[in-house]
């Protein structure tokens, strides 16, 4: 049975691999294999988040962008300018339920400028 590694150690391993020019896909495959072998697949989301945090600490930011329609290059650039990072990876998602605007999520911060959130804020004004 493999030794149980903490999520931060796993994240540090992946971040180190990426930082030193290693393959991100390979590192992630190894992590996935380890999680399956150690029966910790339920921690996957947490592990991914920890890896993103570790990467962000090293200046490599993975940002999730959610919008109602696909972003054009101009908008994408504008969004990239708002995020401070040495290396930035964008993970785009089209979700019509947000109606309009954009949701930008980075490790440690979140910018929710969607129409859906504004409507939700309006509904939260209920007594």
């Amino acid at each position, binding site marked *: 049975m493999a030794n149980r590694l903490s999520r931060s150690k796993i994240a540090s391993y992946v971040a180190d691999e990426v930082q030193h020019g290693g393959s991100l896909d390979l590192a992630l495959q190894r992590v996935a294999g380890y999680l399956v072998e150690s029966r910790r697949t339920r921690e996957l989301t947490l592990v991914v988040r920890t890896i993103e945090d570790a990467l962000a600490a090293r200046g490599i930011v993975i940002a999730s962008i959610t919008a109602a329609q696909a*972003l054009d290059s101009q908008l994408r650039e*504008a969004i990239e300018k708002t995020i401070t990072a040495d290396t930035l990876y964008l993970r785009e998602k089209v979700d019509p339920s947000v*109606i309009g605007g954009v949701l930008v999520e980075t490790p440690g911060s979140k910018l929710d*400028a969607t*129409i859906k959130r504004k409507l939700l804020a*309006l509904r939260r004004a*209920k007594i």
Partner: protein
Amino acid sequence: MNILTTFASTTEAPKESVVAALGIDGTLLIFQIVAFGLLTFALGKWVYPVFIRTIDKRQAMIEESTRAAVEAEKNAAKTQAKIDKLLTEARMEAREIVATAKDEATSMVADAETKGKQQAEHIVTMARESLAKDVIAAKKALHNETIELVALATQKVVTGAMTPAIDEKVITKALEATK
């Protein structure tokens, strides 16, 4: 018959005594006087005392009865006076009782009125509070419903009106706001 005989003999012999002329027999007279005396004595000795005792007794009884009657009358008068006094006292007591009852009834009516007023005021206050709560609840419900309607309407309008150009403007504005 004897008298007639005596009268006839008198008319036939006018020389006899006056007693004889009157037709009185001396012996018979004496005998009758003695018999009368004996009778009187016997009556006075044995019969009259019995009657007198009876009469005395009766008289005593009558006097006793009279005294008793007088006494009874006096007692009756006294009793009547007592009854009158008792009646007077009873009437006074009854008047007092009636007066007290009236006072108590008045007091009870006043108390009942006061309690009724207090209860009515309490009910009115409760009703007002309940009404106020209902109004506040209705206002809240209206407010929430309005917000929900506004949100729904906005969602519908915005969803229908949202074009890529407008979306771009919204995103640009949001990004500018973060700077």
